[in-house]
């Protein structure tokens, strides 16, 4: 069972990171996207997931049974090469449904103090 006391836990990246053009290009190539002026809408998940793993550490999650239930992005401004970003991750809820355990997490991405992207994931631990 996922420890319910992790709900509300928020962690923020300790140092900003810089988005590299080569990372955007590699991602675009993998998904058949020819326009690499901006990062594709799902690009941020490549670094969000490690923040989620960090947030959920010690919560008793069996990662080998984890599947991705749903994913949502709100993008005020798209990411581009050279962006200096900070990332926060918040555990929004933990619940059980149909024999599975579900945890919902939110990521907030800021560029120079301005929030540009929020992303929500539901991760499902199969029962």
């Amino acid at each position, binding site marked *: 069972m996922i420890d319910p006391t992790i709900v509300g836990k928020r962690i923020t990246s300790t140092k900003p990171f810089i988005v590299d053009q080569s*990372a955007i290009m*590699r*991602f675009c*190539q*993998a*998904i*058949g*996207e020819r*326009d690499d*002026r*901006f*990062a*594709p*809408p*799902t690009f941020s*998940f*490549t670094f969000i*997931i*490690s923040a989620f793993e960090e947030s959920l550490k010690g919560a008793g999650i069996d990662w*080998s049974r984890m*599947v*991705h*239930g*749903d*994913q*949502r*992005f*709100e*993008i*005020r401004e*798209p990411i*581009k090469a050279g962006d200096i970003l900070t990332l926060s991750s918040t555990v929004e809820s933990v619940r059980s449904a149909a024999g599975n355990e579900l945890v919902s997490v939110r990521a907030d991405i800021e560029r120079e103090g301005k929030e540009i992207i929020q992303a*929500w994931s539901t991760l499902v631990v199969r029962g």
Partner: protein
Amino acid sequence: MTFTTGDILPTRAFSIDRAMLKAYADASGDQNPIHQDEAFAKSVGLPNVIAHGMLTMALGGTYLAELFGGPGKIRKFGVRFTKPVVVADGEPAKVEFSGTVTSIESGIASIELTARHSEQKVLGMAKAEIVIDEPVEK
């Protein structure tokens, strides 16, 4: 291209093969062996290697970006992962995207997206909002 509420977007099929799964794993950092190692995938009860859900979602983004002037135009994008896309060795999986413009308001087109593989919907509740009132930069 201009859009009107009720428009049906042209269908586009993407072929997902093992090389694409490897490329996506390397580009995204998701090296979970269920997406690359057939023996491992079968050992955890899957019929074969499956595509990353986020790859299928990303291809939906590529589909929308081409129609609406680039990936920088997409403002909201959400999906549920309803069925896995199984990718056998030497048998690329075809995922076919289509969509409907459900509304256009204040320069934003709302889209309902459909992704099908082997006659099944692999994404549920797939919706996007895309900016359409800005000129496309060249």
